[in-house]
C-alpha cells in the first residue's frame, strides 16, 4: 500500500533533479540592422532615434523566453550607472519587479527621469555622494526611456520583461540563453522599439537548441 504513493513522489523528485542538473540552452544569431556608426574600437554603444525607431547603435538585441514563470521573492538589484555624461549600460534588460539603482559616477549632477507609460519617475538632481543611491522598482513590463534633465543628449533604455530568462546579444547578434526549463514557449528577440521577432520553441531537458532569427 505504501509503494504506489511513494512512486509518484520519487518521479517528481527525479524530474526536478534532471531539470536542475542538465542545463537546457538555446543559442543562435539574430540578424541585426546595419549599423550607421563607423566601427568603434571600444565596446561603447548608444541609444539613437532614427525615422521614429529607437534602438542601440551599434545594434544589439535582447533575446528572452516568454511563458508563465513564477516571480522569485528577491530579485538581485541592478545598476544603471552614469559616467562621462552617458549611461554605462545604455540598454538594460530586467525582470519585472527588479530594483534598479542609478549611481552617478561623474563629478557633475545628473537628473534622470522617465515619462514612459511603463514607469514614470523623476530622481531629481543628485551627485555621486548621494546616499542611498537613487533607485526605482520596475514592476510593469515594457520599454522605459531614460532622460537626463541636465544633459539633453543622455539617453538610456530599460526593457522590463515578465521572465527571468533573457540575455543581451553582442553587436554581431550572437546570443546564448542558459538554465532554461523544459517545455513549450515562445522565444522573442527585441531589436528596436518597433521590432520584436519571435519563434515557438520546444525545449527538451538537457539539450542545446540552435535557433537563428533571420
Amino acid at each position, binding site marked *: 500500500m505504501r509503494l504506489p504513493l511513494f512512486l509518484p513522489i520519487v518521479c517528481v523528485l527525479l524530474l526536478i533533479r534532471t531539470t536542475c542538473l542538465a542545463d537546457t540552452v538555446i543559442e543562435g544569431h539574430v540578424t541585426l540592422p546595419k549599423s550607421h556608426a563607423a566601427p568603434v574600437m571600444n565596446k561603447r554603444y548608444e541609444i539613437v532615434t532614427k525615422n*521614429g525607431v529607437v534602438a542601440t547603435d551599434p545594434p544589439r538585441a535582447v533575446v528572452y523566453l516568454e511563458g508563465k514563470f513564477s516571480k522569485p521573492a528577491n530579485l538581485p538589484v541592478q545598476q544603471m550607472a552614469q559616467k562621462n555624461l552617458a549611461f554605462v549600460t545604455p540598454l538594460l534588460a530586467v525582470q519585472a519587479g527588479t530594483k534598479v539603482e542609478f549611481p552617478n559616477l561623474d563629478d557633475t549632477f545628473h537628473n534622470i527621469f522617465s*515619462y514612459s507609460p511603463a514607469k514614470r519617475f523623476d530622481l531629481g538632481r543628485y551627485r555621486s555622494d548621494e546616499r542611498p543611491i537613487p533607485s526605482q522598482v520596475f514592476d510593469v513590463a515594457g520599454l522605459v526611456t531614460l*532622460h537626463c534633465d541636465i544633459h539633453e543628449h543622455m539617453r538610456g533604455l530599460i526593457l522590463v520583461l515578465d521572465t527571468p530568462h533573457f540575455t543581451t546579444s553582442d553587436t554581431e547578434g550572437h546570443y546564448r540563453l542558459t538554465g532554461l526549463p523544459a517545455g513549450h514557449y515562445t522565444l522573442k528577440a527585441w531589436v528596436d522599439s518597433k521590432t520584436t521577432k519571435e519563434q515557438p520553441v520546444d525545449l527538451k531537458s538537457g539539450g542545446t537548441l540552435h535557433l537563428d532569427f533571420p
Partner: protein
Amino acid sequence: MMIIVVSITGVALIIAQRNVAENFERNTRADFQSQIAAEHAARDVRLAVLTERCRQLVESRIRAAFEDDAPDLVYRTAQTELPDALATREGGAETPGAVLNAKFYRFLDEKGAVIPPPAEDFGALERGDKFDERDLALRGLPEDHQVGFVVVHKADGGEAVDEVIVTPIFSRNANAVVAALVIGFKPIALGGDTPAHGRITAGLWLNGRLHMPALSPAAVDKIASRLDGLPPHLLASGFTSLSEDIDGVPHLLFLKQTNPGSHYPPAYEVSLYSQADALARQRELRWEIVGIGFLVLLAGLGLSHILSSRLSAPVETLEVVSAENVVQRERAEAALEVTNEELHARNAELQKALADLEAAQQHVIQQERLRALGQMASGIAHDFNNALVPILGFCELLQLSPNALQDRKKCLSYLETIQTAAKDAASVVSRLREFYRANTGEEEFGPVQLSRLVNQAIKLTQPRWKDQAQANGVTISIVPQLSDVPPVRGEESALREVLTNLIFNAVDAMPAGGTITIRTRRESDCGVLEVADSGTGMTEEVRQRCLEPFFTTKGERGTGLGLSMVFGIVQRHGGQIDLRSELGRGTTFLISLPFFREEKFAVVAAKTAPTKSLRILVVDDEAPVRTLLAAALREDGHEVELAEQGVDGLRRFLAGKFDLVITDKAMPGMSGDQMATAIKQVSPHMPIVLLTGFGQFLDKEKIPSIDVLVAKPIGVVALREAISQALSPAPVA
C-alpha cells in the same frame, strides 16, 4: 487792363493753392507710410526672435513628454520649464526681466485641439482673464510656426487682443509633429495708444470685428462698416485710402494682414493717421496765400489805374483785343492744367508701382535677414549660457564639497576658471551691443600671450572635445606645440573666442575622433597660431566660402557665424587668416597677429599701479557691489566708508573727511549725480567717480559735477585707473 491783372493774379492764386494742397497730401502720405514701415520692421524683428525662442523652449522635457507618450504630464512639465518665459506669475506679479513676456500658454493635441490644462492655475493667465479656448484650436497641426490673435476678456469687463505663436512639437519617436505649444503675448503696440500720443492710432480687425480701444465706439463702427465693404483684393494688398471724417477730422487709413499664410483666421492691422496737423498747417498757408494775393491784386489795381488814366485813349482799341487774348489764354491755360493734372496722376501711379516693386524686393531681403537675426540672437543667448556653465558648475562644486574650500590651490584654480568664463560672458554681451550699434572704435588692445591663450582655450572647451566626444564614443585629443613667442597685440577675450571657435570647428570636422594640433611660432613681425585637425577636410567650394557669414555645413546645428566671426576678429586685429585643407586629411587654420609694442604697455602698467592710501566714500544701494568695491579698495590700502544711498552718503560726507567719492548713479531717493552736485557745492574740488550701468549711453559733459564716469561691471584695474584719473589735475582750458 484791370481784367488782365485780376485774372493773372487769380490763376496764380489757384495754382499756388493747388500745389500747396498737393504737396501736403503727398508729404503726409509719405510720412505715414514711412512710420508704418518702421513699425512693421520692428514687429518683424520681434516676431523672428520670439519664434526662435519658442522653438528652443519646446526642445526640453516638454518634447520628451510628448515623445514618450505622456501628454497628461505636459502641463506639469511646462510649469517648471516655462515660468521664465512668462511675464505674470502667481498673484499677477510682473517680472520685469522676463525673457518672453508671455501671458499664457496651451498645448494642442495631434488633431490641433487644445489639451485642457489640469487646473485653472496651469497655463498661467492673469487672474480673472478669460478667452474662448476654441479660438486657439487649429484644423490639424502645422509643420511650421503660426501667428494668430485671440480676444481676451479682462476681469474688469474690458477686452484685449493677444498675439499667439504656435510652435509645432516634433517627436523623433513618432517621426512626426505630434503636438504644438501655443504661447500668448501682449502684441507690440503700434503707434501711440491714444490719438493724442503720436498721430497714428492702431487697431486690429479680426473676424469682422474692429478692436481699436483708443477710438470712440461710434468711430469704430464707422470704420468697421467701411472695412466690411472692402473687396477681397484690396484686403490682400496693403490698402490706403482717405477715410471719412472721424470725430470731425479726416484720416488716412492703412490696412495690412499681420499673419499672412497663417492657419489662424486672418488678422488685419488697421492704422489711422490723423490729418489734423496737416490740415491746420494747410489752412494757415491758405490764408497766407490769399493775403499775398490780395495785396498783389491791390497793387495791380493801383498800377492799372495809373496806366489806364495815362494811356486810356490809344489803348482802348487794344484793350478789346487784349480781352479776347485773355479769354483764349485762359482756355489754353485751363487745357494745360487738365493735361498737367493727368500727367501728375500718371506719374503718381508709376511711382506707386515702382515703390510696390521696391517694397516687394525689400521684403524678400528683409525676410532673409530676419531669419539670420533670429538665429544670431538665439546663438548669442546660447553662447552666453555656455559661458555660464563653468561658472555655475564650479561655484556649485565649491559650495557643495566641503574639502574643496580647504584646498587653497584647487580653490584658486577654480576661481581662475570662473573669472575667465565670466569675462567671456561679459564679452558675449558686448558682442550683442556691437550687434545693434556701430563700433565706437575704442578697442582695448593689450599684450596677449599666445601660449597662455592656447592653454585657457583648451581648458575652456574641454566639455566639448573631451566629455561630449567621449559620450559619443569617440576620442579626440588636443596636442599643444607651444614655442616662445613674444606677446601679440590684441583683445584677449576676442582672441580666445577665435581659438574656441576654431577648436569647435575642428571637433565638428572629426565625427570619428582624431587629433587637434595647436602650434604657436614666431615670424619676423608677427606671432602665428596654427590649429590643425585630422578630420574630413573641406571641398574647394567650402574652402572658398567658409568665411562668409551664415555659411554653414552643419545644417540646423550651426548658425554659420563661427568662422565669419573669427575672420572679423582677426581682421579687426590687423592680422591675417589663411587655411589649408585637404579632403580626408584635415584642415589647418593659420592666424598671424602683429606683435605688441612694449612702450605702450609700460604706460598702462604704471597707470594701474595702486595709488597712495586714500580715504574713500563709497555709495551704492546694491550690497554685493558695495562689498566688492570695499574689498578691492581696502586691498589697495585705502580707507573705505560705505553708504547705502544718496542722502546717507551726503550726511557721511559732511560728517567725515574724504579724498575721493565713488558713487552709483541709479539709486532710490537721491541719485548719484544729484548727490555729486550737492557735494561739489560744498567742496568744489572733491574728485567724484560715478559708476553707471549705462556708461555707453551717458555723456560726461552733461554731468559737470562728475570727474570720471565708469561703466559697470567694474574690474580692479579699471577701478584703479578711474581713481588715478580722478586724482590727476584736470586739464584747465
